[in-house]
């Protein structure tokens, strides 16, 4: 069913990763992503892998859940690995040279590194951000990181509010879509017959009620928000103040150090590099 789809799912908890300031986490993720992309030899990749394992332990999230997050990208990972394995050409003796298949040692190296690169990127960003930061804290973090833009009249608060409401209503609307699909099926609607035009037309009985309902919800929500004295950013305070604490500063330093380490490891001499 549709509602089984999880979008950047948050697992509540109380680990140090959970408690970090979302702004710091956003910045740290940027450092992390850059590090993943500049890593180029066995030492830096090993360091990446090690840090991701460490992050998993620190987050307190079960390794099973973490492994599950890999599932959706598995196809991409395998595809990338296969491409690199078979299509990397190098000036060396191929390990396998059978019919039209040639595999060079360099291909194997690249394939392995690519796997590590994609997996650490996915798992690392999930652990630092989506798994350990509630969507609302994330939106909050983004709003505050971008708040200097308010000076040049960028509606940062409004965008953040839109994000929050979208996040809030995604599960509701997915559930509603499920319900409408079932209801139209009960009236004999078929969704998988006929050509493209016919198929597109078959979705009208779902889309129209869904849009009408979404507009009605939006309308009611707007009134409810006004009744709770919402008037945009004006004079608004927040329950959860974002205050930089010692641990946030430490985390930021660690993030910078992390990237520095990757750069350092990259310079170590080894034949196992790309």
């Amino acid at each position, binding site marked *: 069913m549709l509602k089984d789809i999880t979008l950047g799912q948050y697992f509540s908890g109380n680990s140090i990763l959970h408690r970090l300031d979302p702004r710091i986490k956003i910045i740290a993720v940027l450092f992390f992503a850059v590090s993943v992309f500049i890593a180029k030899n066995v030492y830096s990749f090993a360091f990446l892998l090690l840090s991701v394992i460490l992050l998993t332990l620190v987050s307190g999230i079960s390794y099973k859940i973490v492994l599950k997050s890999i599932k959706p990208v598995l196809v991409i990972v395998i595809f990338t690995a296969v491409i690199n394995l078979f299509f990397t050409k190098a000036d060396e003796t191929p390990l396998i040279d059978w019919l039209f298949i040639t595999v060079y040692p360099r291909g194997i190296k690249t394939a392995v590194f690519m796997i590590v690169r994609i997996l650490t990127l996915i798992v690392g960003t999930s652990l630092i951000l989506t798994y350990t930061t509630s969507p609302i804290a994330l939106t909050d973090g983004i709003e505050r990181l971008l708040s200097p833009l308010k000076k040049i009249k960028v509606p940062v608060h409004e965008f953040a509010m839109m994000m929050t409401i979208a996040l809030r209503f995604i599960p509701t609307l997915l559930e509603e879509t499920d319900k409408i699909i079932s209801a139209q099926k009960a009236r004999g609607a078929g969704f998988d017959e006929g050509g493209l035009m016919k198929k597109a037309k078959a979705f009208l009985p779902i889309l129209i009620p869904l849009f009408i309902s979404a507009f009605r919800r939006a309308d009611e929500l707007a009134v*409810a928000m006004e009744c709770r004295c919402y008037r945009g950013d004006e004079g608004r305070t927040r*329950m959860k103040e974002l205050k930089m604490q010692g641990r946030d500063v430490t985390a930021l330093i660690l993030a910078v150090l992390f990237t520095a380490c990757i750069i350092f490891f990259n310079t170590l001499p080894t034949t196992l590099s790309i």
Partner: protein
Amino acid sequence: MIKLENVSFDYSDAEDLIPADKVINNISLEIEKGSFVAILGHNGSGKSTLAKLFNGILIPKSGRVTVDGMDTSDEDLLFDIRRRVGMVFQNPDNQIVATTVEEDVAFAPENLGVEPSEIRRRVAEALETVGMTRFRQHSPSQLSGGQKQRVAIAGIIAMKPECIIFDESTAMLDPQGRKEVLDTITKLRQDGMTVVLITHYMNEAVYADRVIVMNDGNVEMDAPPRQIFSKVERLKEIGLDVPQVTELIFKLREAGYSLPHDLVFPEEGAEAIEKLILEHKQR
């Protein structure tokens, strides 16, 4: 605290496709501070329109509505009016803004610019009042209808209003959810909150001090529940349900048995009938 003077309203120039016969017809009334008023009526009687006039969601076409002396037609005053008169709506899903319970309850105080530490205190207190403290980290989609509605109520309590209007807040709930909301209202009453309850369930109105029955945009009756409930025939005529025990007593009285006419609680009815039977047995 809320005062309506010769208020009329219709939807004739609204862009929405709401039928224009949903009108308010020259109504004057006052909601006293600290009172518990139930507004009854069938769908389309004008009861929800009336409620939306109370806090300036709708502005009267003629006449005026004032909240603590502030005219709702003055847009500059709306902010102050709405912080005094909170409103809980029918659909629990469409009034929760945030992705966690506690963030949602904090929404109104945040809009009011309350200090963060004070917001936290108010949120904790409001969640305690509605009995949802245990769920403060939950996402709204994990809650039942009654629970969501309690969160919505907490969101209003945290605003510290003087009055809360419940606009058919029980209509979409199952019996369990309805009970949860009504229990919460009882609790708010104990704390001295002014409550206006809009409903089409007669048995929700028994605890009110005053019942206003709406019909076709007019105030049909305005009296304490005991007087309202004795008018069984008229209530049925205008499409309202009379509680079963009230109807039974009405029928027994019609058949000539002497029973008080102003019983509203089922327990009272049961006692009166029990007494009646015992008396007959002794004879």
